[in-house]
């Protein structure tokens, strides 16, 4: 467990949070999808076919997003459900939203004193890349890039201090 009150990095968030976000992502993928995520790709190569978002409110305010290709989103859903990717259908939205929700919950639970005073929103999933994201967040973002089944995925946390 880490405290929310510790050394602040130049982007306005505690220095340890980046590692905690990465750990939160790794745990969700290893435990719920049985997948060890691999080395990060170049930061600008993540397709935005699907973007899942969960808002955080209270002592920790902001929004956590998971961005990936449609193939990655369908494969995540198929892996979680133990089914053929062709059978996933509309469940892809629910599954990706849950992945985002679990990462956000796992992350806030790792911050001492924050979990009790931070609420998560219901997940929202956007399809398509033709949108602009405007957040009131004024710190960060913390970003973690990785490969899931060889395809790039981005997890980002924008924080409103």
């Amino acid at each position, binding site marked *: 467990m880490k405290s929310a009150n510790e050394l602040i990095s130049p982007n306005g968030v505690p220095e340890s949070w980046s590692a905690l976000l990465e750990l939160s992502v790794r*745990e969700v993928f290893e435990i719920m999808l049985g997948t060890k995520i691999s080395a990060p790709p170049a930061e600008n190569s993540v397709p935005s076919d699907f973007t899942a978002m969960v808002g955080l409110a209270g002592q920790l305010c902001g929004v956590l997003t998971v961005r990936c290709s449609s193939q990655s989103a369908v494969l995540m859903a198929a892996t979680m459900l133990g089914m053929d990717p062709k059978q996933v259908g509309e469940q892809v939205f629910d599954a990706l939203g849950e992945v985002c929700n679990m990462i956000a919950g796992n992350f806030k639970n790792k911050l001492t004193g924050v979990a009790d005073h931070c609420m998560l929103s219901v997940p929202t999933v956007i399809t398509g890349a033709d949108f602009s994201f405007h957040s009131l967040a004024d710190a960060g973002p913390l970003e973690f890039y990785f490969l899931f089944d060889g395809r790039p995925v981005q997890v980002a946390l924008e924080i409103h201090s």
Partner: protein
Amino acid sequence: MKKIRALIVDDSSVMRKIVERSLRQAGIDLEEVREASNGAEALGMLKDGPVDLILCDINMPVMDGLEFVRQLQGADVAKGVPVVMITTEGSETHVVQALSCGARGYIRKPFTPDQVKEHVIPVLEAKQ
């Protein structure tokens, strides 16, 4: 252990399926599985007949998991039925709240089938 009837309460249908699969992987023989997407729907489903085990999320629309567990305490149909929470809310305050409302177990998401087994089997054995 005898076959059990389970009620799984979560607003995510994907998570309900994962919980059901985890129960089966934990070696629990399921005779019947009912699914509800919130506490109010779950209360209504209990009118259809008793269950042996309830697994419940906390953050849900309409009626959240803590309120559902509170309301269960006064319901004849749920008398003695163990409730295990499965949730992303991992703070000690939430655990204490859930247990004081009447929940018998608490599992944090993400979870493994082994964790489900570890928390669910004892409450089922205690019930029998």
